[in-house]
């Protein structure tokens, strides 16, 4: 059986995506305080004199000067004609002057953006950033990009070194510190991750770093040091909603976890005023975990930064195909994210696409070879594909991390037994698992285990197959357990098909 990836505890730990993507998600901006409006500055005297010269005597020099001053003063609108002239055939500027004009036109949306050199195969991108860090070693962000690609390619020690350099160059930079923290979480060093943000001077003033400290402490099961600081940053009213959205989500999650539902919900709603994809995913997780509906489906559809939230939502609501699609996009953004791989593998498993499941599982295991969740799905997919020995070998090598995991293991033993036609043994394992879930008061997994028992019994033509199916359907009742419901629906279909074959006289 496959436990739901939605049930895994989630915290608003920083995401680590490419610098370009992080900038697009507005995670690195530092706008004016809330309540202030952008001051529109008049053109400088130099700007006006240059405009006059450009109008009076258009030339490469006067056009280039307009483009330059417009770029520096942050007002491209009046420089479009000059930029176009520099891109045209009548002028012969140097290549870099032309490039500057092209970038101005790109910013104005007048021409298509040029392709970034940081695209394509991982190795190519790795080489690009490696070259950059050699050519200009004090570019901290280049070291972070390099570390990210090194992690993705499994070069863990190299990644640690790259991140160390980045932290030495820019010890208080938001992107560097959040990326470093996330990297150490991935490397199963949560204490080091926590230290990255805890010991950073900027964490007490920068809500993005405060959010990271609170979330990572929560992930470690420790009390956050900056909880009160975080609350006062939110309540100060100085920050724009987007700047405090992850902080509000981090604080809200802790409050909910500690039983302060009203205040926790209020914080999460505050975070949803202008959320990142991380906050959306947190809200989606809270919706399922605390039964606190916070998000409309339409909001997730509209957001360009909600792959994780969509993955969880679609899985929770039984839209497994869509969940898989979103998970694959999520993997594309955060290839090293264990949660992304687990979600993709789980969705593929439920869809009974075992080849895809194994393919995705292999990919995920490259980044986290010990991932129990992925291995569990691998066991399931192998058993369902007929590779029982391998499935059993992996299953028996896995040490269950808690009692729930032990019951899941028991259910998977049942699956393997059924597939080996050891029906009574299989039923025994499943019954043990169901009893275990019942003891743990995990109604959802109890229903799932019963559904799988029914499926395997019907599939194996076991004598009590119909009874198992009815029991499972009765137990499920009207509950919103999409996974169990899907398994039972498929099983009912299987049973009907078997009956039809029988009535047609086809051999069993």
């Amino acid at each position, binding site marked *: 059986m496959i436990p739901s990836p939605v049930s895994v505890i989630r915290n608003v730990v920083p995401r680590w995506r490419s610098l370009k993507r992080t900038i697009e998600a*507005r995670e690195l901006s*530092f706008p004016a305080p809330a309540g202030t409006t952008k001051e529109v500055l008049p053109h400088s*005297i130099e700007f006006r004199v240059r405009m006059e010269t450009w109008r009076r005597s258009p030339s490469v020099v006067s056009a280039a000067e307009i483009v330059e001053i417009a770029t*520096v003063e942050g007002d491209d609108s009046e420089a479009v004609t000059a930029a176009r002239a520099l891109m045209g055939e009548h002028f012969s500027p140097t290549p870099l002057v032309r490039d500057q004009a092209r970038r101005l036109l790109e910013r104005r949306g007048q021409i298509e953006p040029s392709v970034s050199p940081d695209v394509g195969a991982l190795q190519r991108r790795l080489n690009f950033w490696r070259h950059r860090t050699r050519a200009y070693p004090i570019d901290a962000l280049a070291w972070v990009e390099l570390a990210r690609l090194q992690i993705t390619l499994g070069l863990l020690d190299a990644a640690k070194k790259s991140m160390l350099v980045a932290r030495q160059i820019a010890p208080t930079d938001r992107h560097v510190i959040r990326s470093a923290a996330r990297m150490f979480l991935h490397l199963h060093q949560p204490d080091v991750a926590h230290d990255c943000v805890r010991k950073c001077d900027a964490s007490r003033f920068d809500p993005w770093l405060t959010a990271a400290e609170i979330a990572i402490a929560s992930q470690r099961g420790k009390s956050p040091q900056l909880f009160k600081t975080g609350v006062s940053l939110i309540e100060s009213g100085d920050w724009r909603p987007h700047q405090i959205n992850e902080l509000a989500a981090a604080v809200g999650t802790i409050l909910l976890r500690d039983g302060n539902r009203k205040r926790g919900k209020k914080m999460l709603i505050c975070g949803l005023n202008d959320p990142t994809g991380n906050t959306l995913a947190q809200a989606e997780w809270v919706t399922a975990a605390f039964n606190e509906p916070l998000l409309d489906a339409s909001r997730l559809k509209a957001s360009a930064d909600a792959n994780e939230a969509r993955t969880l939502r679609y899985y929770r609501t039984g839209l497994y195909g869509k969940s898989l699609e979103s998970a694959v996009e999520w993997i594309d953004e955060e290839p090293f994210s264990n949660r992304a791989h687990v979600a993709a593998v789980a969705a593929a498993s439920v869809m009974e696409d075992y080849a895809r499941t194994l393919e995705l599982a292999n990919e995920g295991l490259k980044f986290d070879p010990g991932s129990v969740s992925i291995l569990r799905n691998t066991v399931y997919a192998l058993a369902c594909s007929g590779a029982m020995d391998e499935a059993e070998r992996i299953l028996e090598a896995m040490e269950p991390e808690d009692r729930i995991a032990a019951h899941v293991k028991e259910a998977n033993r049942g699956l393997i037994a059924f597939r080996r036609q050891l029906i009574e043994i299989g039923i025994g394992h499943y019954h043990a698992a169901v009893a275990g879930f019942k003891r743990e008061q995990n109604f959802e997994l109890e229903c799932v285990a019963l559904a799988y028992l029914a499926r395997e019994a019907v599939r194996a033509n076991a004598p009590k197959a119909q009874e198992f199916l009815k029991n499972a359907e009765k137990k499920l009742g009207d509950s919103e357990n999409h996974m169990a419901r899907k398994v039972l629906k498929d099983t009912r279909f299987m049973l009907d098909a078997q009956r039809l074959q029988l009535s047609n006289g086809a051999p069993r």
Partner: protein
Amino acid sequence: MTDRDLSRVPAAQLANLTLHDGWVVTAALPKKSSSGGTFSFFYEVQNGTRSGFLKAIDFTEAFEPGVEPIRAMNRLTAAFELERDILLLCAEKRLSKVVIAIAHGDVQVPGFDTMSGRVFYLIFEKADGDVRGQADVTNRLDTLWSLRALRDVCLGLEQIHRHQIAHQDTKPSNVLHYPDATFRITDFGRSAKRGRAVYHDEFDIAGDHTYAPPELLYGSKHEEFTVRRFGCDLYMLGNLASFMFAGVNVTANIFSRLKEEFHPNNWHGTYEQVLPYIQQAFAETLEDLSAAIDPDVRDQIIPIIRELCNPDLSKRGHPRGLGTTQQYVLIRYTSQLTNQSKRYELERRVKRQAR
């Protein structure tokens, strides 16, 4: 500048006047497109066979609506006096790479009263032109000339720094070339002298914003004169190197790569907080410059730009001087560029003879 009635501005009415030291104003010149001089008009002047370039200071801006006249007059006269005194000092010390004033004085413009009609001026030796044409591939100086120009400007800045003067506005339009194949820095209207206060000292950026170092554009001003003012000159020299060899200025190139949220208009954090993004844009700029600069001198020029234009003021300057009192001293670059231009000239001659 365009919305003023110039017929009422005495400094704009000097054409055809004869000055008391024998100079005749022959023609008005258009304002330089990249001139930061807000209070001046320019003319061609002749004195027998000698020709020159006159800068007339316009004090009437002190009487514009919304301006406090006494304060403005004080500021304008102090600025004029500082520029004049610096030029006199440069002349006295025989600084070879600085455009020095060959005459200065005042003239009463007919038709105006004795107070507002008195125009103060400075006359400079006339140059062949400036180096702004480097942006145009059909009209640019070759590598050897660019090396010479850079060396001369470097020496000029080194000379004035020795006298505790920071230029603060070193840009292509302020680098003039002369018939004797030399280049000199001009326009001390935005300069600063240690120990002497002038009104533009209070500005975040004294010179042209387009060429200014990024820390000043983000309002980060170092308290110390040397660090802030000489650091600015070093940046502008590196910027000029980029312009001479690739036609672009580093500041504009960095900003053209920055996303909107990191632009000073939208950034409300500190300069230290935005620095990593500026450094990344600078790294990209260096990469592009590396591909654009003549391969014969690339390995010498790129390090100069990298060191002089480093957006981190604490890392700006020659690596051997970082953190020492020599950090913002240009002598190493002067000798480096002198050697480089001589070597390049020699190599070119050898190549030509071999052909």
